[in-house]
């Protein structure tokens, strides 16, 4: 129990220490056709929304439907969505079929060993990271519940207004 108390203290302490506006870590991942995508070559043009998901993740599916609407509303204003699948070697084969069946319009990348997911401190999908025009992390969110898409759209609108 003492260790538990210590850990809780450690937790609350670290909470107050770290802020959010850090530089988004650079990464290089293949898309569904094997072509590499480098984040640093694409920042600076407009906000980038990174969404980590998996074919087996039930809340991810609900969120991706909403992301489709967000993409429709903001892509013309400069928003890019990078939809990063963390499907591993067991399920990565299902990604392309899943994307085609659901007709997702955004860029799909494959993080088969979850190394970029870990780089972004992910624990459970879905995880959303919004990067501003300067390559800084402006907003992060884990999980999906009804209404999360409203907050996300507000954050995107804020970034687009700053431009």
């Amino acid at each position, binding site marked *: 129990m003492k260790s538990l108390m210590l850990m809780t203290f450690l937790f609350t302490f670290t909470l107050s220490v770290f802020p959010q506006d850090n530089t988004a870590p650079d990464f290089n991942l293949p898309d569904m056709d094997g072509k590499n995508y480098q984040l640093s070559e694409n920042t600076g043009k407009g906000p980038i929304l990174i969404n980590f998901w998996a074919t087996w993740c039930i809340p991810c599916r609900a969120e991706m439907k909403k992301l489709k609407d967000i993409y429709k509303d903001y892509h013309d204003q400069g928003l890019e969505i990078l939809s990063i699948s963390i499907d591993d070697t067991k399920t990565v084969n299902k990604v392309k079929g899943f994307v085609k069946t659901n007709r997702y319009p955004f860029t799909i990348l494959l993080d088969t060993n979850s190394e970029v997911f*870990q780089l972004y401190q992910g624990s459970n999908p879905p995880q959303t990271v919004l990067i501003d025009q300067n390559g800084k992390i402006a907003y992060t969110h884990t999980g999906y*519940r009804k209404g999360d898409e409203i907050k996300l759209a507000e954050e995107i609108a804020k970034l687009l207004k700053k431009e």
Partner: protein
Amino acid sequence: MKRLILLHLLWLGLTLPVLGQGFLLPGGIEVSGNTYLEFALSDTSKSRFTESWTDLFLTRGNFRAGFRLGVHEPPVSFASQNSVSGLEHRFLEYRKGGFLARVGNFYSLFGRGLILRSFENRTLRWDGNIDGVKLEYRHRYADGQLIYGQPRKSRLSPQEIDRKDPRPGGERLPALTGGELKLKPDRRIGLGGAYLYSDSLENIKDGVHRWSVFSELNFDYANIYGEYAGVDGAGGNTNTVEGGRGLYFSANLFLGDFTLLGEYRQYDSLAFDGGLTNNPPTVIQEHLYTLLNRRQLIQNSDNEEGYLLQLGYPVAEHGVATVSYSRTESLQGRKVYEDFTALYEAADILGAEWVWGFARQQDLEGRYLNFLASTSFAVSHYRSLKMIFEHQHARVSEIPGFITQRQHYDQLLTLELGLSSRLAFSFLGEHSTDQFADEAELNDDLTSRKKHHFWAGGQLNAALFNRIDLAVFGGTRRKGKVCIGGVCVVKPELEGLEVSLTARL
């Protein structure tokens, strides 16, 4: 315990200077991190556990250093790992463009994992990092990586579990040396190979050579992947089989709105450290729903072959139907696992999202018929009501083929009320009957032998300050297998409280 306190104090000492200085340390060093805490207070001692770790990352330009302080007291059912605390990860890396150099703890994947896949999965409570050096380069026409290091050992000996001063980073297997090269002469074609040498254990003369060749083809209407792997030399670790082979093949076809997936595998003496240091594809339908997941295949990559066929089709504007069939046999031709699943997912019917599913699973113990229904209503922009109902009828023999069979009828209900995007309450209830199948059918008087079991609990999920996810479960929860990618663990019965807390900072 003293050591634990000292370590925490040391950690506080290290992080204290950051307080009040924002996110930049002198010298332009950015600080980021996260903290995870999970514990269970239960009447059943077997299910008590504590898991906690704090990650701290320091970044300056292309350089990045990372540290993890962890405290792990796993449940008794995870006793193949010991209770440890201390600095379990540390690394320094340099990234520029497609180049990465890392010294310390890292993860790596060769091909589809037939010879190497080191990975972390907290649900399985498994962290298979390698401690050493990794160099990686990704280019338009070629990707490559070189590694050297010691992978974490998955199953500890009783002496290692009882060690008085366990190593915070876990016990280690002999060192690995290897690399992977993938050529991409055209965006449609990928060709590659990988090689891995593992040092010998004591008393075994030679080390073990693992290799694989693979290729992939990507077209608008099809994706095809094939990999062939071999193991030469005796005794990778606990496995003393002389030589091994593995074949994996998959093809995706996109015909109009239809998507068709076919996969095949044949693994003979391929497991590396019980299949946790390689972990090749299982070629089964992976299930996330609780009752279906409990009956999934525990992969034996030393002696299995199997195939999977899956068909997907978008029905109407917002509906998707998926049908799959998979079958796994031992190399001697004995059926080990079979699964037929049909799922229909639909949105915007009567203003709700729906999932209906049916599955028939069969393993060496018995066969299982499953039905599931899930619906989610949006009460308002922020409020939602979700219900998941799962039913399973199991007919099992504790001794395969034995005449006395038991049958179970299991019902699982999850009701979730989302009050906002940050707060939700759930009720989870399970009911199970257990009876001798034949007696129940033949004689009503014997139905008194039917046993009823109930488990019920409530859960609170909250998102605080946009950084913290809190989940508190109170009540009883049934013991059950949890499987991910052919690796299964048994979650013990819970009678009490389970708390998990994650903060990304």
